[in-house]
């Protein structure tokens, strides 16, 4: 008798995402689905819109990572008008982009994903949240998290107009620059960010790496997948979030591809399933062979784990040292352990902070020369950035008046969608034996999912670091046999 286990992230059930796990007659997991029931049609309603509005339109795809869309769109505008940003504009953009990566990753580490390890995967559920994190690292740290996030976001608002849906990017530059007076504030904040990032890395090391049990979980087979990896690198193959080429390595760690964003159509394709509105990206020249590991299947991963795997290091000293330590301890490249993503993310926090400081101190950043004027006729443009959750592609075609005739957007979560579904299935397979699912499955499945920081409706974030999930075990008549949930609501 086949059974169905339905995992409803109940908060998102109402239109955003759910997991379905199916058992065969022996109670073994047969198949897992991650279904995203939402489609907002941005690519289609962008048609006929003036291209220069795309940075503002596409940021509305995601209010959690609006700067990623804003920046990819701005880079696409440069390309569309065949114009380079001024050196100052380029530095400003990269600086603000790193500020964004810093605050977004920090949010994930302390509030979303981090509690699993900082508080502990087996800690009581009531403690596995930001309050538990504060309990573990101290109230002063909790205050620091709030303070540094506010400070960075205020500075982003000051320059980009708004932090939620910026109005800053223009083809060939930006709408606003920095004065010498303002620069001092950015430097002061950047210095705090570097200190905070170092503290965060040390916290991770003390609490997670110092605990053999946690390290065993991270490196366990249940959370391991051998797939391709993709991420952006500079000309020295070092990580860059803002500019570079896309590098892909195979499951053995060899370079498989390196391409410019504008050539994405040669290398990537989208697979469609009837049971979800998300399209699954895969490597075109490997092919789609289903939700499977291995070199013969085009499934790949993006985001921090993948970015470190494809990178030869970081251009900043502290992040570089951490990068070396990461691969030393985890046994070389590539690292296939999904949960190592958390560590990789913390290293990226450090890089983002160091890069923010480097650029804030750059004497060239306060020049008023922030715009190059487009003169060429617009035609087609590509823009690619590394969003916190992975590689993000924007591709526009316009008429000669700069009105959109085509928009194509490949968002970060699409890249990871296949591997996320596989991770859920594998965790479930590891835990569900003979049809028995106990309470432990919940957090294990959650952890497999949460490591990716999935941005489903572009905003699927739960602040306590715990996605409210209910698992329903049903027989094939649809009768409820058992229900497990990890949340409760107590009335006072």
């Amino acid at each position, binding site marked *: 008798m086949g059974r169905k286990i339905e995992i409803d992230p109940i908060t998102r059930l109402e239109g955003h995402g759910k997991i379905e796990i199916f058992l065969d007659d022996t109670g073994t997991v047969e198949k897992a*689905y991650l279904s995203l029931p939402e489609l907002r049609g941005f690519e289609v309603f962008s048609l006929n819109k003036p291209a220069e509005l795309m940075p503002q339109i596409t940021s*509305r795809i995601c209010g959690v990572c609006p700067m990623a869309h804003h920046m990819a769109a701005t880079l696409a505008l440069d390309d569309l008008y065949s114009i380079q940003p001024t050196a100052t504009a380029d530095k400003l953009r990269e600086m603000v982009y790193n500020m964004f990566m810093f605050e977004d990753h920090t949010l994930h580490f302390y509030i979303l994903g981090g509690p699993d390890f900082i508080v502990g995967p087996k800690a009581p559920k009531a403690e596995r949240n930001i309050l538990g994190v504060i309990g573990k690292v101290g109230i002063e740290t909790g205050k620091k998290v709030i303070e540094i996030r506010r400070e960075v976001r205020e500075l982003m608002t000051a320059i980009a107009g708004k932090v939620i849906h910026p109005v800053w990017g223009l083809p060939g530059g930006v709408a606003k620059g920095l004065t010498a007076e303002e620069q001092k504030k950015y430097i002061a904040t950047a210095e705090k960010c570097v200190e905070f990032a170092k503290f965060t890395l040390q916290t991770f090391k003390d609490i997670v790496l110092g605990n053999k049990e946690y390290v065993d979980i991270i490196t366990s087979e249940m959370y391991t997948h051998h797939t391709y990896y993709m991420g952006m690198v500079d000309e020295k193959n070092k990580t860059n979030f803002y500019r570079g080429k896309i590098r892909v390595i195979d499951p053995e760690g060899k370079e498989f591809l390196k391409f410019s964003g504008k050539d994405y159509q040669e290398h990537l394709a989208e697979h469609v399933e009837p049971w979800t509105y998300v399209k699954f990206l895969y490597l075109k020249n490997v092919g789609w062979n289903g939700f499977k590991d291995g070199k013969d299947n085009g499934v790949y991963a993006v985001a921090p784990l993948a970015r470190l795997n494809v990178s030869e290091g970081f251009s900043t000293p502290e992040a570089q040292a951490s990068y070396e330590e990461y691969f030393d301890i985890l046994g070389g490249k590539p690292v296939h352990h999904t949960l190592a993503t958390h560590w990789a993310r913390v290293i990226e926090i450090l890089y983002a902070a160091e890069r923010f400081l480097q650029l804030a101190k750059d004497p060239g950043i306060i020049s008023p020369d922030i715009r190059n004027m487009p003169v060429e006729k617009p035609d087609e443009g590509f823009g690619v950035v590394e969003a916190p959750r992975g590689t993000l592609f924007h591709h526009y075609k316009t008429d000669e008046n700069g009105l959109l005739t085509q928009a194509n957007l490949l968002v970060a979560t699409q890249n990871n969608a296949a591997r996320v579904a596989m991770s859920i299935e594998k965790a479930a397979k590891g835990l569900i034996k003979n049809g028995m699912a106990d309470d432990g499955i919940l957090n294990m499945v959650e952890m497999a999912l949460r490591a990716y920081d999935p941005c489903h409706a572009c905003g699927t974030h739960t602040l*306590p670091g715990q996605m409210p999930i209910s698992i329903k075990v049903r027989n094939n008549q649809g009768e409820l046999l058992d229900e497990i949930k990890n949340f409760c609501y107590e009335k006072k």
Partner: protein
Amino acid sequence: MGKPKIGMYWCASCGGCEEAVVDLAEDLLMVTDKVDIVFWPVAMDFKLSDVEAMEDGEMLAVFINGAIELSEQEEIAKLLRRKAQLVIAFGSCAHMGGLPGLANMQSKEKIFDYYFHSGPIVDDTGVQPDPEITKNEHGFALPEFYSSVRALDQVINVDYYVPGCAPTPNIVLDAITTLLSGNLPPSGAIMASDRALCYECPLNETKPDEGMKIKELRRSHEVEHIDSEICLLTQGMVCLGPVTRGGCGSLCIKGNMPCTGCFGPMDGVKDFGATALSYIASIIDSENPEEIEKIIDKGIPDPIGTFYMYSLPKSMLFKKLQEKKEVVEIKTE
């Protein structure tokens, strides 16, 4: 007596409205001292059945962001309406349908065709998301995709509105403080300034004394030097500040970019886009119809996107579209 109970919920939204609440930072802790947040999916564990179990009107207020795109969202909005004394439409999508409301100009078939068949890198095998196939062959439910986006008050009765895409922290804090004060504004009030953005704009004084007259409208990428000291409209940029409700702190203008109208219209205005369009038309410095057309065509190549960026679902234009079931071009004369 316990603390007042507050709920927050998201419908079809980008998450920016949730971030706007988190951006209260230290002030959020002050708020949670004064209220019990009993329902906030993004931040707290809950179950919908717990809301169902509440007495009608048990919550003092519920803040709902996002537009209504799915039947589930409509059902939950109706449930929350019953359980809360006050419903606040939070952010542009709940207030006016929001930017994703622009999808109302396109058909579901066109969106499906692009996404699943004709897009540049789609491996088109004829498959597309299908609730029937999902149910019959895969054994679970996939919600239907609806092609029309609605604002919250097109589904339930709304008491107050907090405008903005996203609402700015000052507006959010003021709204919460006002609700807790017990000194409630009249029903239907929009909880921001009741005057146009120009009144608070730092560049307002640079408007010409003799009145606004524009010979040329320019798109943002065409303005070589955006002068941060002079009214952007005077510089020929289409700034909707004169017809948009203030209260945001002029953030876009301080970023050297024009207002696009996310706070929506002032009291008494039924159709934001029509008002914005007539305002812009009124300041064009020409009596010659051909010249007027030229100025507008050049500066505003996409009138619907410009004037209805956040409010299409609430517009008279959309009502007309629904009646005619076809996409029409609006005339700008």
